[in-house]
């Protein structure tokens, strides 16, 4: 894994954003990007701008909502929050991921043996 940026799958980023919003509550774009970088322990170096493609996709599907608000250090910023259908989607996708990840792990272990 040399270039983590290009290896992020579209759906993966969407799922990360949803999970972040679920865990942290409403958050602005910068906050989401920073949070994902931290969680991944900087293994994932985003061009932070790309986060907006994911945010738009999720908004168009009505899985998140957006509204202007004020940040901790008193700046105007747009805050995103997960919606009810977003939460349903998160549940379904997370289960799916776990299943795939489990299968992948087993397959990889098999290959190691």
């Amino acid at each position, binding site marked *: 894994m040399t270039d983590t940026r290009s290896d992020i799958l579209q759906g993966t980023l969407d799922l990360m954003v949803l999970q972040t919003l679920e865990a942290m509550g409403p958050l*602005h*774009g*910068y906050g989401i990007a*920073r949070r994902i970088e931290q969680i991944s322990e900087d293994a994932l170096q985003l*061009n*932070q*701008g*790309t986060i*907006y*493609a994911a945010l*738009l*996709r999720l*908004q*168009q*599907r*009505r899985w998140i909502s957006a509204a202007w608000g004020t*940040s901790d*250090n008193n*700046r*105007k*910023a*747009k805050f995103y929050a997960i919606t009810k259908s977003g939460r349903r989607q998160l549940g379904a996708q997370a289960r799916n991921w776990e299943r795939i990840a489990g299968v992948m792990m087993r397959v990889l272990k098999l290959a190691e043996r």
Partner: protein
Amino acid sequence: MPVWLAVAWSRLRALVAARRLDDDFDREVSAHMEMLVDHHLRRGLPPDAARRAAALEFGGAMQIKERQHDRRGLPFVETTLQDIRYGLRALRRNPAYSVVAIATLAVGIGAGTAVFSVASAVLLRPLPYQDPARLVRVFETNPLRNWSRNIASPANYADWRRRNTVFTDMAAYEQFNSLGSGASEIFLTGQGEPQGLKSLGVTGNLFSVLGTPPLVGRTFTDEETFDGKARVVILTYGLWQSAFAGDPGVVGRSITLSGRTYDVVGVMPRDFFFPGRDVHLFVPVAYQPSVFVRNRRPHYLGVIARLKAGVGLERAQQEMNAIAGSLEKEHPDTNTKMGVRLERFHDSLAYTPRPALLMLSGAVGVLFLIVCANIANLQLGRATARVRELAIRQALGAGRRRLVRQLVTESLILSLAGGALGFALAIFARAAVQQLAASAIPLFAEIRLDRPVMLFCVGLSLLAPLFFGVLPALLSSKPERLNERGEVASRDTRFLRGTLIAAEVALSIVLVVGAVLFGRSFVQLQAVDPGFDQNRVITFELSLPAARYPNSADRLRAFEEIERRLREQPGVQSAGAVSTLALRGYTWTGDATIEGRSTNTDWERELRHKSVTPGYFKTMNIRLIAGRLFVDGDRIDQPRVTVVNEALAQRYFRGEDPIGKRLKFARPQDNDAWVTVVGVVANEKQDGLDHAPAPQAYSAIRQRMQNPLTYVVRSTLDDASVAALARREVQAVDRDLALTSVAPMRNVVSESMGDHRFRTVLVGAFAGVALLLAALGIYGVLAYFVSQRARELGIRLALGARPQAVFTMVVGQGMRPVAVGAALGLAAALALTSVVRSLLFGVDPVDPGTYAAASVTLAIVALAACAIPAIRATRVDPLVALRDE
């Protein structure tokens, strides 16, 4: 809400609020950047470095914003809307060009739509019967009588019906000639003024063969068809509405038709007509059953049958051939060489007008191509003037595809505007076309601008830009052209414009040749001597109902009384009557034996005969050539006499004196009385001005009664007063009689030329428009050429070039593509003449005169179009030309 719908909705909303959302995102990105900068400042970076790091971490902001914009909305739609806005602006900036292009397209698309509306009504629109493709017309054929599609005799029909296994059923209706519907005049009385209506005798199973149930009541039973006594009637929807106000209670009531009472048993649905829209009501053919067994000699039934499921036309034809073969053996004296021809019913209705309609479709297609070539030419001219604009757009980052797309969008706008206007033109032209086409298209066809016609119009509008827009767009967006500095047209553009002019000229000359051919044909037709003088003659038909006038003597008395009264009116010069009026597409023919010429195997099977009153020849001014005309003394108790026409005299008595020769209206073996020829008259055109006169025998009405008769009245009065006095005098004799088909004889003549007029006017109009467009095209290209070379021309003139030489040079330049196009067009026209040969009259389609006339016409138009720019070229002021640079 399903996810896809949410996305679609969101994208659609974004399209409307594009600018607001862009601003919103700008602010969001700035906020994000500031937070990033803050973060780096907190880590101790100096402000410059913090900003750089932030920008790096965020990624290309501009790019992200653009991509976000595209993902948010519908970029394709947005671009298209942009193109449309831009296109509209470009077209508004150049109104003269836009107006000319839209008007030209409107003419092309409108003419195409109008012709299609006629073709669709006649050839394409399905007939309003159940599964109409399975309906078949059954004709008699007979090479001995020159029959290829003849009406059938009742006994043949009955045998066909009984013996075949390929049709679910076979029905028949009265048809007295192979053109009209055979509906006869009948009078509805007891509902106010006596009303002349057309009634059609049909077999009772006709409606079940057509598969149309009545709207109210029932159709005829088999007994009603065949016992010959039934007085029942079925109304069409139109008559039901007009005469009975749509009252359903009329079923079961009695009405009086030509003096007899009929029970109304049913009403047909609104869309129903058969076989033409002129029929008002249906009655059973009501022949005695014996007619269907014995009558194999008179032919007066149209026969229609429905193919069984799974049976094709060919198999049906084979079986009918076999049946005709056995009938020939069983009835050699009537059925020798009598065959059967099957034709899809719709094809049989469209049989006569089809060639003319196909020709007109071709002609309007040519016109459409000329329109497209013309606009392509305009576009090329304009594109050259737009080089700068396109170059700037390219420099600002528009790719070639984007430029082409933009130009094609402009073409589409023009074309759709032209199409909309063209459809409006077609709506306005509808009544005129219907009227012009009235005698050229069959009675079943009703011109409607319905959905197929609309779709056709839209289709033409979408198709047109493919022809006129794409190539110019590709050419004018060529990158190497846009890099050129000046506006000098590139060589390929010049070549293309020359080619387009040549094509326009070639197509125009095809139409002009067609117009000249049809025009000469029409002139020839009008110059034909009909054999009578149609001016100042009014005609009307009168039928005496059998109920009130049961025998010949009664009828004769009434007919003669009416004629006498007419003749005595002040202003009336003469009056007469005839059994079948000329040029109404309608004649009676029958067997005839010429004494000393016909043999037991070879007699005249199709001799035309009609009965006239003594006043007929005088009223029509038909010239007596030999012998005498009829006189009042030619009564039933006197020796039988006949007057024949010149054609008959020449056919049978060439080189002899026909007076005193004898013939009989029967076969040689029949015992009918001999009839003596007492006079020879000039040929009177019968079937049409474009038909050679056939042998014709006349009988005196007193010796051979006919009903109905058509009166002819010659007077010095105007048409309306003659019609009024005729009505008055007829009703003075019998209050319940009504005149039908009242018309001046010259209208009868003119209507008989209706189909010729229709195609002549249309093709002439197309050719005129084509010439105008070709002239515009030539002018445009040459005017551009002169303006481009103004400087060169100015220098030449300054150096002493004679203006004539400049003039000649410019005209030569303009005429070169014209000459090429004309040569190609003449060759194409020559190749196409075989297609129109059958539509012409008295004109040889390869007559050099026509081609010379077309070429001269085109040359004059082209020279006129060249002259204006050429004159301008001779007046170029060298100083002005030089200063222009």
